[in-house]
Each structure stands twice: as C-alpha cells, then as structure tokens.
C-alpha cells in the first residue's frame, strides 16, 4: 500500500512542479524548498536507486542550470521576496508564528535523547546539527543560539545569501555554515551530523523515501532526526487547503496538493525502512483567537516526528 502511495506521490509531485506557480506565500509554507529538492530529482524522476549516486549528482548539477533557465520567472518572483524572509509580519509570517512551537519540540526531544540540561540557555553546545532546506535561516539561527554548530543547506542560492547576511548580524549566529546544496550532495561528501532536521520539506519532494534515505545517511548512529509535515487527512484538506488557501488566503491556491501529503503512519514506515525509529510525534494546533500555535496530541493536520537512527 505504501509503495502505491509513493508512486502516486511521485506522479503528483512531478505534475506539480510544472503546473504550480510560486508566489510569496507559497514560499512561506513550502519555504522554497520545493525548488531545491524537487527540481533535480523530479527530472530524473523514477531513476532507480541503483543507478549510482555519482551519476545522479552530475545530473543534478546539470539540471540545476536547466532549472534556472526554465524557472526564471519563478526564481525572479521568489528572489523578490527572499529579502522578506526575516520580516516577521511579511509573507513568511505563518512560519515565524510556528517557529517557537517547532523549536520547543526540538529542544525537549533532543535534550532528552542526548542527555542535555533542559534549563541551560545553550543546551546544544557541542552538537552538530544540519537544517535541510534552511530557507532564510529562521530555524538555523535559533539552533545556533541554543549552542549547536549548525549547517544550513538550501538549493536556492538567494536563500543562502539572505541567510548568510542575516546570520552575520549577530556574532553568535555568524558561526553557522550555509551551503547552497542538497541533502544528497552532503551524503556524497560523507558529512555526518548528531541531529538532522528538515521541517516542512518532505511534502514537496518528489520521492519521500529517497529523501529519507539521504537524511538517514547524514545521521550518526544513535543520532536524531526531526521531520515535520502535513497529514493527508480530511481535516488537513479542510484547514491546510480549503481554509488556508481559499478562505484565509494565507497561502496561494494550489500551494499544497492533498495527495502529496503523508500520514503519520506512512512517515513512520518510510523512516523505518531508512533505519530511523520514530520515538515521538506531536501535532501543531493553531488557536485563531490568540494567533498562536501550540503542541498537542492531535496529529490530524500539522505534525512533527522525532526519531533516532539505529546503532548498526
């Protein structure tokens, strides 16, 4: 059943790639990672895993130049709003609002797993963390303030530039390493991290299973992986698509494709096959009265999962 789903997801994502137009608020949710992760792999589409990674990466390099010529109007559009990544009232507002809640989950799960002091101001001191699909760095910077040595990767060059400039404003965050690259490329460089974090990315990649393999390959044995995404539930359809896109206009119509969402069960299964054991899962709920997000047991719309890599 899962494989059937994956096929469907793949097909949908490939379709998506060409039909969708990128607009400011799409980027807010998708964080432009769509471009970074989808573009290369979608063009190689169902390329069998055995085809050898080096081939694939060469292809990536080629396709990225193809991509920029193809997607020029969209890249231009995105570049125009990339400057607003750090405007907490701007197009990325939904992400800014959600950020403290996501970080609270990451803080508590990682502190527990790595035995760090949760009352410390810099609990992640000495830990290496990678933020896959870092966008303008709104997750990378808090992680760095919490003491981690952070690597932020994003395939969109402009994002990386914005992230770099912003991080340099504060000596604490200026230590972040930003690279315009992909998870696959990091795997090839044999980079390893204590924790791998990729938020709101997987629903936009062409092949979630392959993506999870890469994330897992970046994680040290007994290391941690955190992924967040949107559930493929009726409520998610009603809230993330109908309400957010059509009624509230938080996101442009067509931002999310319901069929490309993963249910928590599917995510657990995919991660299991990548030697990641999911230990904890939580939902995000939005309170329209306070305008704030909070953690809950309700995983029916937005959810976040924490897993650890098997020791072997």
């Amino acid at each position, binding site marked *: 059943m899962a494989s059937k789903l994956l096929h469907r997801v793949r097909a949908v994502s490939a379709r998506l790639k060409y039909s969708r137009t990128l607009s400011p608020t799409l980027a807010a949710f998708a964080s432009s990672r769509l471009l970074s992760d989808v573009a290369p792999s979608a063009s190689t589409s169902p390329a069998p895993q055995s085809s050898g990674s080096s081939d694939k990466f060469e292809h990536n390099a080629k396709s990225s130049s193809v991509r920029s010529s193809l997607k020029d109007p969209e890249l231009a559009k995105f570049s125009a709003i990339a400057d607003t990544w750090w405007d907490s009232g701007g197009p990325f507002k939904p992400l800014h609002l959600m950020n403290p809640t996501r970080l609270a989950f990451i803080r508590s799960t990682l502190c527990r797993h790595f035995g760090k002091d949760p009352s410390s101001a810099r609990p992640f001191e000495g830990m290496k963390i990678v933020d896959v699909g870092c966008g303008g760095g709104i997750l990378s910077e808090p992680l760095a303030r919490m003491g981690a040595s952070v690597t932020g990767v994003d395939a969109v060059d402009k994002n990386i530039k914005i992230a770099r400039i912003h991080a340099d404003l*504060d000596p604490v965050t200026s230590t972040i390493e930003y690279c315009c690259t992909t998870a696959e490329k990091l795997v090839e460089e044999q980079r390893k991290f204590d924790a791998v974090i990729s938020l709101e990315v997987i629903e936009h990649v062409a092949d979630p299973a392959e993506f999870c393999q890469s994330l897992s390959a970046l994680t040290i044995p007994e290391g941690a992986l955190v992924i967040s995404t949107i559930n493929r539930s009726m409520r998610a359809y009603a809230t993330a698509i109908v309400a957010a896109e059509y009624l509230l206009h938080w996101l442009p119509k067509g931002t999310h494709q319901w069929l490309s969402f993963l249910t928590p069960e599917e995510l657990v299964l995919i991660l299991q096959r990548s030697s990641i054991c999911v230990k904890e899962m939580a939902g995000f709920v939005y309170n329209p009265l306070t305008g704030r997000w909070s953690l809950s047991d309700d995983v029916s719309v937005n959810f976040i999962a924490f897993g650890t890599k098997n020791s072997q």
Partner: protein
Amino acid sequence: MNRFIRKSFAVNLGGIRVRSRCLCGAAAAGPSGSIRQSNHGQEQQCSGTSIAQYDIAIVGGGMVGMSLACSLASMPLTKHLNVAIIDSNPALVNGIRINKQDPPDPRVSTITPATTSMFRDIGAWQYLQPYRHAYFDQMQVWDYTGLGYTRYHARDVDKDSLGCVVENKVLQSSLLLCIQNADFQKRIFPSRLVSMSLNPGLKSKQMDGISSEISRADLAKLHLSDGTCLYAKLVVGADGSKSQVRELAGFKTTGWNYSQNAVICTVEHASENQCAWQRFLPAGPIALLPMGDNFSNIVWTMNPKEALDRKSMTEIDFVKTVNHALDHGFGPHPTSSLLGKGNIFSWFGAGVPTSGNGGFEIPPKVVKLASERMVFPLSLRHANDYVSKHVALIGDAAHTVHPLAGQGVNLGFGDAFALSRVIGEAIAVGMDIGEASLLKKYEAERKPANIAMMAILDGFQKAYSVDFGPLNILRAAGFHAANYISPLKRSIISYASGEQRLPLFT
C-alpha cells in the same frame, strides 16, 4: 566583514569581563564625572570599535527596573545575559544606607502577597527582611456619607495577610543588594539616556559610509548624557511616568491629569496600627497604612489648593485635620445596616460564614507627625503600545495609575516578572530577544491586566468625585454588597492582592 564582527565581539567580551570586575571602580568614578554633554557632541565621541554591546539595556534603575535585572539574574535561562542599567541616581553605585532607627520615609508601597512571593523567588526578600516592613491582615473602607462601609480580613481568603507596607528605599536597596550579590554580568551607567537609534547601522551607512556600522544593524544604539554609547538587543524603558524611552521610541499615550494632588507623610500613633484604612472624602480618599512600631503612612488625595494649605499649616493643625478626616469629619460614622432593621443584604450572607466581619471601627488617633509632608500631582496615563522591535516598556513608563489602592508598583513588578519570563521562554527556543513578535507576547499578557486595574481605580476615583444623594446611596449599596456577598468579596480581595484576574476581565 565576518572576521571583523568576531574580532569586535571578542573585544567586547573582554571588556565586559573586566568591567564587571571593576564595578566598584566605575562606581567611584561615576558621579564625579560632570554631565555637560550636549546633544550635538555625541556622534564624534562614539567611535565604532570601542562601543560595548549588551543583551539588554534597562533604562531606569528604580524599583521596577532593578526587579527586572534581579529576575533575569535568578533564572537559569537568562542569567547569562549581559545587562546594562542606566540611571543617574548616585545611590545605584554608592549603595543605599538605611538607618533602622529613623522614622519611616513617607514614600512607601503596599506590596501584595503576589509581589512578596516574586521577591522570594528572585532572592531579594532576604535583603528586605532585616528592615522595617509591616504586614496587615485587615482593611476597612468606608465613605463620608455614613451610608456604607466594608471590612476585609485575610481569613476571608485563607491568607495570613492582605499585604505588606514597605518603604520604597527598602525595596530599592534590597533589589540593589540582590543584584550586586548575584553572579550576573551587569554594568551600571550613572548617566541619562539622551537619544536612541533603533536602526543605527543602516542610518550610519547612508550618512558617512562607515562599513563597521553595518554589522550592528540589528541592534539599538543608545547615547548617554556623559557621551557614552552602547548597543543593545533590547532596550527596556523602566524610567517612570515621564519615560524618555517611551518618547524616543515614539509610543503614544492616552491619559489625563486628575485635578488632584496627594499629600503623603508618616505619622505616629499611641499604639500599633494593624489595619489598612481608607475613607472616601468629598475631595478624594484618605488612606492610613500601618508601618510598624506605632507608625503609619498617610496618602491623602485632595485638590491642589487644599494640598498646599495642608502642607504649609502647622504640625498640630495638620494632625488635627487628619484625625478629623479619619473620624467624624465630613459626615457621620456608618451604621451597620443600610435600610434600618430590614437589611436587604442580610439574607445574602445567611448561608455563608461571616468570618469575623467586625462591626465598623474607628481608626487609631494620630498623635504626631513623623516626617515632612510631600505633595505629588496625580495622573492616569497608559501607553498605547508597550513594545516595538528592540523596545519594551515596564512599570510607570507603560502605565501610571491613581495611587488609590497602592497598586501602581505591583503592576510594575508584575510587568518586570512577566517580561523576564517571556525573555526566558524566547531564549529556550533560541529566539532573538529583540524580536517584536516575542515582545508582543509580553504586551498581550500584561496589557489587559493593567487596563482592568486602571479602569477600576479610575472608576472609583470618578464615583467619589461627585457628591449627589442617590449616587451616594448607590455607592453605599456597593459597599454593603461587597461586605456581605462573600464570593464577590473574596474575589475583590484576591484581585487586590494581585493573585487573580477579576473574572469580568478574563
């Protein structure tokens, strides 16, 4: 550019370490440095590389500002912060000497049990304990019409006390000792804030192209009257009702001046007073607060002309008018029932334990004046916003209330603790502490509470500024209701002791 930032950061760190060690040295040098800096001279004095950077700059080292510093120093998530305290009051560097033998200072605050427990949490209570502080467990409020009164007892809310009266200088010195003994990176600047730029890097770049300034774009830059400049991620305005930070940040305020002044002084009784008394007179309320050792504090609200008269009259005459105002003056003592024998409120209280509602009592006589008389104008002022990027207002800078129930400073302490908690939460999730969205959380928490208290106190003030028969009866009925309907009474006491929000406003 990167390298430059790291370098200057290293310099800053070094500077800070040295500075916190030679705090005493700076202290000695502080007050002697004359303040003759004028506005135009600052820019030249602030050279790019030597400017120190702080996490938080607290402008105003009064009770509220210091309580913020103490609270930050006491929490594991915030104690690493590097804080600048800006206040030209020499006491901050020289310390405050309190002679226990002196009669109490007339400037006092009634701190609520909620504030007391906050002081314990931040570790300042141990420094307050040795000095004079008077708990009271009873309160009587009545008015001049003789129609109503109400008596509260701490037992009504299962508490030991309703509040504690402490001299401001004792509060201030305990907070100062607390911060001095805390393991905390702070520096006191004995100076005044002159100007503030909230986007300094960008501006300077356009003006004179100093590239070093770009790296500071995300900080506030402060210019002090002694020519010092400093950068801070967050500037906290704790500089009172005429807040310079509020003006410089361009926050608008709403409010009005009451055409009233408060006369305050310390008085002495023949025996110890253990109850807080408040009587509403035609021109405003008079309050008599126990100070311990036969002393009480008086806060008497009246029109400005009267206030001047009362201040200049002889001591003997003044004591006479005080006793008159607290006893038979302006009207008779209230009787315990409003409408003769058939008291309409008596059956409300029937099912509820009366918990020692004593009858009406007359306050103890004042025998002599024990301090000078001071006169303060009263006003109500509320900042429309408490926060913007890099700026937050706390205490009187955000809201000045009628001193009617001694709530002003408690609201300020509430602000300080709320702000430090919000900062701690932000640090827990790695946020930039100057971020407006974070600061908004503080505002959302405090504004409703402060506005509710202001509205209640203002309403009280207005209700008593009119002497009109039917209204007097209504007010008296209000007192009776409050005296007899226990749940209502309980919630009023809880509210006044800072423990809960009035259900109406939540």
